[in-house]
């Protein structure tokens, strides 16, 4: 060390004393004091993504509602008039499934591109990449909750027998979020390595849409088909929404907690997969 640097360093020792903790360079700095700062950053990034999504215009939120409304009108017309499906208050039945599905699929599509679409963020020292899928899913869930306005309108129109079971809604939204997050992490990580993951996801979702009881009820099928539907976690979520909003009964708790448990395990595995590939992102982008 030269005399020049020694003098400069001596003047500086006050500051470094405050930051005494050593860490490895690739570890994300984290401490209780930084919690508030992390929250500020998270909220800022969510609003930043909203602005990017709607190109700075809050009117863009209208499109969040427009898409499900159009789907709802078209499917209601085709299935209750043209195909004559025998379900009472079909628009309400359809709405429960469609909003849940849109929340699921839109969140996943956003999450798949979340890391690949944010090179400016993952090149910042100390920024945890796992925040990106979380932000995308948070955004998708906010849009889902906003889209529930449509459901409220239909509930007023059809006035089904609502009761206490409606309070299960936040729990259902929470479990749905858990499920989405569990799939979001591996998709976001794979998109960096394989550029067509998002396109394949869109195709897969198109299939899954018709294999999920959104347009129809499971009991239209003979009993030996039910096991296939039971393997699809969305079936249980959609049936739970229908239970509380159409019939005013509590959802099937066994099925719902089964979905929660499977999602939680998948989330742990998905996050570990994501973190194991974290340092590859910079090289592959």
């Amino acid at each position, binding site marked *: *060390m030269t005399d020049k640097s020694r003098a400069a360093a001596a003047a500086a020792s006050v500051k470094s004393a405050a930051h005494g903790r050593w860490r*490895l360079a690739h570890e994300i700095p984290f401490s209780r004091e930084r919690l508030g700062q992390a929250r500020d950053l998270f909220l800022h990034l969510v609003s*930043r993504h909203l602005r990017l999504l709607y190109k700075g215009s809050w009117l863009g939120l209208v499109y969040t509602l427009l898409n499900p409304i159009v789907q709802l009108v078209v499917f209601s017309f085709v299935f209750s008039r043209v195909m004559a499906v025998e379900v009472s208050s079909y628009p309400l039945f359809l709405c429960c499934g469609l909003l849940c599905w849109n929340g699921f699929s839109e969140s996943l599509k956003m999450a798949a591109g979340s890391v690949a679409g944010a090179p400016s963020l993952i*090149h910042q020292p100390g920024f945890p990449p796992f925040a990106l899928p979380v932000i995308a899913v948070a955004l998708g869930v906010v849009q889902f909750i906003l889209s529930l306005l449509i459901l409220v309108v239909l509930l007023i129109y059809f006035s089904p027998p609502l009761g206490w079971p409606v309070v299960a809604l936040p729990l259902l939204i929470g479990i749905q979020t858990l499920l989405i997050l569990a799939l979001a992490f591996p998709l976001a990580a794979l998109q960096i390595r394989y550029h067509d993951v998002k396109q394949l996801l869109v195709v897969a979702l198109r299939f899954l849409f018709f294999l999920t009881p959104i347009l129809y009820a499971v009991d239209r099928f003979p009993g030996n088909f039910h096991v296939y539907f039971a393997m699809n976690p969305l079936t249980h979520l959609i049936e739970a929404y229908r239970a509380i909003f159409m019939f005013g009964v509590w959802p099937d708790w066994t099925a719902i907690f089964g979905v929660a448990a499977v999602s939680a395990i998948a989330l742990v595995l998905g996050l570990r997969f994501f973190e194991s590939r974290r340092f590859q992102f910079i090289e592959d982008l």
Partner: protein
Amino acid sequence: MTPVMTVDNLGKRFRRYGVWRPKSVIEAAFLGWRRREPDDHFWVLRGVNFEVFPGEMLGVVGRNGVGKSTLLTLVAGLMRADEGHIRVRGQVSALLDRARSLHPLLTGRENIQTSGLLSGLSRNQVTQRFDQIVEFAEIEGFLDAPVRTYSSGMKARLAFSVAVHTDPDILLVDEFLFVGDQFFQDKCTTRIRTLMQNGTAVLLTSHIAARISAHCNRAMWLGSKGIQALGSPDEVLAQYQAGGHVSTGERGLNS
């Protein structure tokens, strides 16, 4: 004097793949799913040991490809070392790639907020320092225009301004310190000196020797076999130049 950063037997290995590495799931499906091993490995840094102390500026010189930028990327924690460790204390800020740190579609104002929060400031601190950052970057009239409409000089000044207003403990600068006109460069130098007096350690890379000798307390010559020389800038640069490892432009000036 305790260091703010220690580098201990550092090594980073890159993989090299041939053209047949699948880039999409479809390609992988046609080429078969078996795990494809990289065609070969090459080490960029190996057996690198040094320390950086608070308040000093360490300049790294070396030819293209010896791993100067890789070293900074590793210190920034964006990649993980394959051998050895880098230990750091406190907040690390980096000016590694000026094109990448700003979002082109968002306005200057929004980018300042994002970069400030990312550098570890709280929302209040960003608000407090906002005017300072804007004034330093000289972009007053363009705050609410998207960054894609900025000139490259404006982008560089903005990224630089945010980085030097966040009180980092370690500031990493990759060929970046010298942006803008002479007036702006002088301002940058003054600002960096203030940061260093407050304890910020600066790690700077350059292949232009004159810049290292003008600004740094210490210099390090990084060669393909690791650290060739480490010490006072004049000595290290003399050895570097004696080895014939000066970029052609500078050699013209010095000879």
